[in-house]
C-alpha cells in the first residue's frame, strides 16, 4: 500500500503525458477491482466492463439528466455498480469452474445491449454527453477541475481512499478467506467457510471498486462512450492485471502502465497496435504468468529466503 501510494503520487512527474498518468491511475483502479476477484479469489471474470460502465453511466446520468453534484454523482455511480454486481454476482457464482468466465461475459454483454437500446438515458451508440464538470465544490472548498494537476490529485485522493479500504480488507481475516477459496475451494468449504457468500462479497466489492473507477473516468472524460460497456473493456482489465501481476497489490497499476505505454508507443507508427498488444499478452501468459511485478516480487522473496 505505501509503495502504491508513493508511485501514484509521483506519477504525474515521471509519466510522458498528463493524460497517460490519469489513465494509469483510473485503469489501474479498474484492474485492481478485477484483480480482487481473479488474483485474490481465483474467479476469472470476463464481464467487468459492466461495473466500470455502470459506474460511468450511473455518475454520468446523475450529472447530465438529474443535475446531481459531482460528489453525489460519484456515490450514485458506485452504488449502481454495486447493485449490478450483486445481481450479476448472484447469478454467475451459481455457475461453477469453467462456466464462470462465460457467464460473466454473457451477462455483461446483456448490460451492453440494454444500454445500447436505452438511448433516452444513455445516448445509445453516440454515448452520454453533457456532463462536463469544471469546478469541484464541496462545502467551502472549490477546485478547478480543468487544471490537469488539480484534476490528477483529486482523482488520486479518491483512488487512495478506495485502495486504503481494500488493503484493510485484504489484510483482514476476510482477505485470508478469499485466498483460501482461491487456493482450494473444496477444502475451504470443508473447513467451514461459506464459500458462496465469500465469493459474492468479493464480487460485490470488486464491482464497487470498478464502479468507482468508471465514475471517476466519466468525470475525467466528460463523456461516456458506449464502448465503456463492451467486451473489449472487460478484456482490458484482464490484460492489465495479468501483465502487471495478478494477486499483487501494485501489479494492476504496473500492468495498466505497460498496456497504456505500449498503446502510446506503437500507435505512433501503426494503427494496428492491438496486434502487438495481443502478441505481448500471449507471450506473457506463456512465459510470465505471474506478470511483471509478480515475477519481480518472486525473485526478491527467493533471494531473501
Amino acid at each position, binding site marked *: 500500500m505505501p509503495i502504491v501510494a508513493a508511485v501514484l503520487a509521483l506519477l504525474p512527474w515521471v509519466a510522458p503525458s498528463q493524460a497517460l498518468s490519469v489513465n494509469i491511475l483510473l485503469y489501474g483502479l479498474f484492474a485492481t477491482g478485477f484483480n480482487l476477484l481473479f488474483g485474490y479469489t481465483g474467479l476469472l471474470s470476463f464481464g467487468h466492463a459492466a461495473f466500470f460502465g455502470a459506474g460511468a453511466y450511473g455518475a454520468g446520468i446523475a450529472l447530465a439528466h438529474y443535475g446531481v453534484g459531482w460528489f453525489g454523482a460519484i456515490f450514485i455511480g458506485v452504488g449502481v455498480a454495486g447493485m449490478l454486481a450483486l445481481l450479476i454476482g448472484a447469478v454467475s457464482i451459481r455457475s461453477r469452474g*469453467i462456466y464462470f*468466465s462465460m*457467464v460473466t461475459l454473457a451477462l455483461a454483454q446483456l448490460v451492453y*445491449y440494454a444500454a445500447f437500446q436505452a438511448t433516452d438515458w444513455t445516448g445509445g451508440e453516440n454515448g452520454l454527453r453533457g456532463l462536463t464538470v469544471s469546478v469541484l465544490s464541496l462545502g467551502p472548498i472549490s477546485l478547478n477541475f480543468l487544471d490537469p494537476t488539480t484534476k490528477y490529485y483529486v482523482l488520486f485522493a479518491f483512488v487512495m481512499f478506495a485502495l486504503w479500504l481494500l488493503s484493510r480488507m485484504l489484510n483482514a481475516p476476510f482477505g485470508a478467506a478469499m485466498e483460501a477459496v482461491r487456493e482450494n475451494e473444496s477444502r475451504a468449504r470443508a473447513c467451514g467457510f461459506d464459500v458462496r457468500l465469500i465469493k459474492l462479497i468479493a464480487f460485490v466489492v470488486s464491482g464497487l471498486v470498478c464502479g468507482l473507477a468508471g465514475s471517476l473516468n466519466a468525470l475525467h472524460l466528460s463523456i461516456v462512450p458506449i464502448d465503456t460497456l463492451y467486451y473489449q473493456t472487460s*478484456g482490458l482489465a484482464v490484460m492489465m492485471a495479468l501483465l502487471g501481476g495478478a494477486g499483487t497489490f501494485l501489479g494492476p497499476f504496473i500492468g495498466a502502465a505497460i498496456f497504456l505505454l505500449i498503446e502510446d508507443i506503437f500507435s505512433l507508427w501503426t494503427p494496428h497496435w*492491438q496486434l502487438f498488444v495481443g502478441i505481448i499478452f500471449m507471450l506473457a501468459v*506463456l512465459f510470465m504468468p505471474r506478470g511483471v511485478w509478480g515475477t519481480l516480487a518472486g525473485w526478491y522473496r527467493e533471494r531473501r529466503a
Partner: protein
Amino acid sequence: MELDLILAQLFTGVALGAVFVLMSVGLSVIFGMLGIVNFAHGAFYMIGAYVGIFVLTLTGSFWIALALTPILVGVFGLFVERILVRPLYGRGPDYPLLLTFGLAYALVELVRVVFGSDGVPFDTPELLAGGFDLGDLGYYPAYRLFVIAFTVLILLVLWVVIERTRFGLIVRAGARDPRILSVLGIDVARVWLLAFGIGTGLAALAGLLAAPMRSVNPEMGVAVLVEAFVVTVIGGMGSLLGGAIAGMAVGIVVSLTSLWMPQMATMSMFALMTLVLIIRPQGLFGRDDLAR
C-alpha cells in the same frame, strides 16, 4: 400476427440456430477433450468467413470454399494447439482461456491489417440465391434451408464418427474421464490436437455458412462468441446433444422475440440463460461433475 409469418420466422430461427449449434458443438468438442474454454472460437468463426471470401474470389466457387475453409482453418487450429496451447496444460483452466483470449485479440487486428476494418459483402451463392414459395407459409430463402440441411448433415457425420469409430470411442471415453486414455495407452496429445483442429474447423464452417446471412467484418466474432457461450451454458458444457438442442432453442427464441419485440431480441437469450442457471446450474444436459 399471422400464423404463416410466425412459421417463416420459426424457420429463420432454425437457420440461425444451426450456426449456434455448429459453434457450440465445436466449443464442446474442445472442452470435452482438453478441458479448456476456447475464447478464440469467435475469432476462428470470423477467420472462417474471411478465408471463405478469399477462396471464393480465388476459385469462384462457393462449393470449393465450403470444402476448403474448414480444413484450412482446422489446420491453423492444429498449429495453435501445438505451439500456443500445449505448453499451458497442467496450469489450470484459466491460462489456456487467457491465451486464447489474447489470440483472438491479435487475430481480429491481423484481419484488419489484411482485409481492412470495413465489412466485406458475401453474396449468397447463385444456386441458392432464390427462395421457395411455401404456399400459405410464405416465401423462404433457399440459402437458409441449405444451411439447415448442411448442418444436419454435419451433425449426422459427427454423430456417426463419435458413435461408430475408434476415434469416437476415444472421444467419448476421454470426455468421461481423461485418465482413462492414458491407461488405455492412447496418445492423448494427438487426440487433443485433433479435437482442437475439429473444433476450430467447425467454428470456421459456422462462420462461412453465416457469412451470407450476417455481415462479414473483423468484429463479427465477438457477438457470436457470446451467443455460443450462452448456448453452451444452456445446453451443458461437453454435451453435444445439449448444444444442438440449446442452439435451436436459442435461435428460435431470438427470432420469435424479434417478431414481437425487436429491441429485446438480443437480450432474450440472456434471459433464457439466466433462467437455466437458476434452475439447473450445470445446464440442461450437462453433467454435474464436469463443471467443478
